[in-house]
Each structure stands twice: as C-alpha cells, then as structure tokens.
C-alpha cells in the first residue's frame, strides 16, 4: 500500500498540510497586531457562526428543557460507563502483569 503512487500523493498532501499549519502558526503569532478591519472580519465571522452553526444550536439548547433533559440522561448513562471501562482496563492491566510474572 505504501508503495502505491496515489497513496504517496496522499501522504505528501497530509505532510504539506501539517507544514502549512506550522508556518501559519509562526506567521500569525509573529505578525503585527490585527488592524480594525481584520478584527471586524473576525467578529462578523463569529457572529455568523453564532447564527448559522452548531454554536447557535448549543445556545438554543440552553432554553430547550426537553433537550437538556435528554442530554442529562445521556451523560448520566455515559459517565458510569466510562468509569466501569477504566476500572476494567485497570483490571486487565493488573491481570496481564500477573500473567507476565
């Protein structure tokens, strides 16, 4: 698989994306402070996100009591499940170390 040219192209694209990210961070952090236009562009982008994205949905969730109840019940069910999983993983780890001895 790793020797296929199409897969090599994908790896190169992924690599380029990470180098782009690293350079974007360096350029942005070293750049001079954003001017008013850029700040306004960002703020309007955030406002659009509030209106049209899942962020807006999560805001409306706050006023939806029925949905909040479902989320609470789901988290009540999930949290013990995660704790049991962690305990099971610990048991398995201990058992494996005992077998190794």
């Amino acid at each position: 698989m790793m020797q296929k040219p199409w897969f090599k192209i994908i790896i190169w694209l992924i690599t380029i994306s990470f180098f782009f990210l690293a350079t974007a961070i360096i350029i942005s952090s070293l750049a001079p402070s954003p001017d008013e236009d850029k700040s306004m562009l960002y703020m309007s982008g955030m406002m659009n996100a509030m209106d049209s994205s899942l962020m807006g949905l999560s805001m409306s969730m706050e006023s939806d009591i029925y949905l909040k109840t479902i989320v609470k019940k789901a988290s009540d069910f999930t949290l013990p499940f995660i704790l049991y999983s962690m305990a099971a993983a610990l048991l398995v780890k201990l058992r494996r170390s005992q077998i190794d001895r």
Partner: protein
Amino acid sequence: MKIRFDFIIHWLWTIVFSLLALSGIAMVGPRYGWVLNYDIGAADISHRVLAAVFVILTFISIGYEVIRAIRNDTSSQAWFVIGSGGYQLFTYITTLIFIITGAIIWICMDANMAATAFALYVHEKLTYIVILSVIWHIYMKCHALVWPKKVQQGKSKTMK
C-alpha cells in the same frame, strides 16, 4: 491486498487531526482568521463535526487495545496511534487532554466562563505543541515520503 487495522486508523486519524487543526487555528483569533478567510461559521461546524469523528476514532482505538489486552495479544502494532510508550503514549495523553478540554469548552461555554477560558488556553497551546511534534514525527518517518522507484524489467533481468 490485506490492509491492517492499525494502518487504516493511523491515516484516518492523521487526516481528521489535520482538518481539526486547520479549522481550530482559524478560530483562535483575528491574527489567525486568514487561514480560512475569516469564515468562522464553516470552521466552527467542521471543527465540531470532526471532533465527534475524532472522539469516535479514539474510542475505537481504546476498545481495540482493550480487546488486545484481554486476548493477551502482544503482537507489534507499528502503525497504531495509541500505545504504552514513545510517540504512541504522547499521542494517547494529548488526545485525552484534547477531548476533555474540548468537552469543557463545548459544555461550559455558557455556564462557566473560567473553566471555558482555562480549557481554551490548554486546548490552544496543546495544539501548537502537537503540531510541532507531528513535524518531528514526519521528520523521523520521512522515508515514507520517498517516491517508489520504477523497476525496469530489462535491468532486473541483467541483475539476475
């Protein structure tokens, strides 16, 4: 052609993480907005959807490791993203921090500003560290970038 599970997870994970980082960086502040042309709405939606995929991939990976542990399977999983040592352990720890801080940001955004601010700070700084670590990881595994050489039939015959 048999493709290994750890190989699939590795590359799915990589693609999802690069897109998450791209959409996340665009939302850091006005300095970073140019990365996605200040389309914060698109960045927000894609970041949340990809975060869900990222969490699912993490739980699949943890489940796979647990099953391997139960079966006492000690075979090498060279491509796997999580593990008990080296870069796999680093990825595992940072992923858990990303998920926990991401959940805090998502859940506490309207309720607890102090928790959200702290989680945002950790989430952002950890992104920089992990991206730098990925660059280092690419450098260490740069042989994967070498283009496959064409095998010339005539040449291979003369070699024989």
